[in-house]
């Protein structure tokens, strides 16, 4: 039995989770929400996290009905992510570790997502599509590592969605992606966009530039140097959201299917913030059905960054005897999924 508390703060979410032997005891989270048209900046995000993190720690213990003495290990996100918000989590974790005299473990954020997904869905050895604001990866487990088979060669899919939401000034509350998803439901007309798949890799930056021009006819007019009196076609925001989703999700489903064929696997697990998009889940589900495969998806409580996933992945590591010297409790912005030795999986 391992009872672990996890702190996650690699981006604009700060979350604390407590897990006891795979059982969810607490999962609390706050999100730093910026005004429409603005993204979150590292310094302001860290400030937000500092203001709420201690209250969250208390709330999580209350929700779990535990005392600090009941915990076995304190886990925090070591990376990848933005350094200032990551540091907030790390500093609080170190402090709690010393204060409560509990061991400390740094966890890879991406591994947290994968292990959380496996825990909640019970998927054994799926192809993992990890899609969030900072990451787009198709991952398969082999020989004690989560190996990256396909990924974006430029910006992440969530970043593409977030930035498009900023261009058309959609609200960031609760998240830009959610608001795009809702608006897309009203879209009727499919607008042709670039479709960029390179092997098992994808690229989104060209699509973003293209749709940015479609969304802002003024810019288009200046760029093309057409006569000013010739009207440019105008597209509704709903149609743009709809077409953007249809295009980039089709790309994601396609590379996932390629990885399934390449690795001869028939299970798919979607994790990461974009993973709670229901249209993406639906498209992936249809693909799986066509191949007699099985889709595992999770809702926003576990998909979006949360402390629970860090607690759970940390608990798995702790069980296998992984220890981290206190001097190593730093954070790192660069920490690839395949750098972690997965010694808790037996297969």
């Amino acid at each position, binding site marked *: 039995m391992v009872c672990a508390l996890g702190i996650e703060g690699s981006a604009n979410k700060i979350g604390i989770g407590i897990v006891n032997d795979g059982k969810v005891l607490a999962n609390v989270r706050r999100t730093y929400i910026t005004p429409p048209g603005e993204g979150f900046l590292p310094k302001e995000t860290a400030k937000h996290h500092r203001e709420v993190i201690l209250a969250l720690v208390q709330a999580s213990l209350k929700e779990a009905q535990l005392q600090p003495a009941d915990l076995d290990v304190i886990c925090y996100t070591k990376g990848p992510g933005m350094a200032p918000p990551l540091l907030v989590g790390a500093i609080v974790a170190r402090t709690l570790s010393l204060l409560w005299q509990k061991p400390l473990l740094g966890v890879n954020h991406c591994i947290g997502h994968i292990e959380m997904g496996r825990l909640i869905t019970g998927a054994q050895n799926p192809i993992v599509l990890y899609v969030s604001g900072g990451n787009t990866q198709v991952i398969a487990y082999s020989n004690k590592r989560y190996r990256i*088979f396909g990924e974006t060669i430029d910006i992440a899919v969530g970043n593409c969605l977030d930035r498009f939401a900023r261009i058309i000034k959609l609200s960031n509350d609760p998240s830009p992606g959610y608001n795009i998803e809702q608006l897309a439901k009203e879209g009727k007309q499919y607008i042709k966009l670039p479709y960029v798949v*390179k*092997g098992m*890799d994808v690229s989104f930056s060209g699509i973003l530039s293209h749709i940015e021009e479609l969304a802002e006819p003024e810019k288009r007019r200046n760029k093309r140097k057409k006569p000013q009196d010739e009207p440019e076609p105008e597209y509704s925001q709903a149609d743009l959201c709809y077409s953007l989703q249809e295009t980039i999700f*089709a790309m994601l489903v396609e590379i996932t299917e390629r990885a399934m064929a390449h690795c001869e696997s028939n299970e798919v697990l979607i994790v990461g913030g974009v993973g709670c998009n229901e249209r993406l889940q639906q498209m992936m589900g249809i693909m799986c059905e*066509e191949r007699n495969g099985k889709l595992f998806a999770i809702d926003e409580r576990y998909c979006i960054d949360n402390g629970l996933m860090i607690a759970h992945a940390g608990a798995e590591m702790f069980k296998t005897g992984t220890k981290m010297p206190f001097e190593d409790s730093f954070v790192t912005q660069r*920490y*690839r999924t395949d750098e972690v030795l997965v010694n808790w999986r037996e297969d």
Partner: protein
Amino acid sequence: MALEIIKQGAEGRLYLGEYKGESCLIKERFVKKYRHPELDTQITRQRMKAEVKAAGRCLAAGILAPKILHSDLNTHKLYMEYFGSAQTAKHFIQQTVAKSGEEQAKQPLEELCRRIGGIIGQMHANNVIHGDLTTSNILINPTPNSSDGYDIIFIDFGLSHYNQATEDKGVDLYVLERALLSTHSEQPYLFEHILAAYRKTCGKDEAAVLAKFEEVRARGRKRTMIG
């Protein structure tokens, strides 16, 4: 006509069939219901055309690829040459390692990589970008009477295009490097031999392509930053 399904790939089914009395491989791309119909039609047509064109270009340049006998855009079927005794390079590498052990496998695999690299170089010299270079898309066809022992045949040109841009060539190499790292992680030496041989045959843009390749790689590294 009874058709034998050989494989269900990511994009289509492969059958054994006949075309004008000749036995051949039929690759049928099926409609992907998860995609918007307009997008699906566009992608399917584009890829079938790309496959026919690139295979033709390769053959014309002396690079082995399946001969396309017929393409039927309405039923989404391509009829092409079938290599019955071939296996994929992925299986060939895995088998060689399993059979002769990690150390003994090195020499024959390095030789394989040199040949693969040379062919990719030739392909790029002819401005054919494969678009999906993995060891699943390279066939090893035994030729018992030749001194090399096998032919190397490139397949699956659906994502290919014709372009002389160094960017596209760089990305093509990057896709291959990543595929090798994930599929053959225990044999990290493969790519360097491919690249060394590639440089000798890829033509006058060698330096520019290599510089572009490094740049594409750097984009990848930068991306490791954010979680």
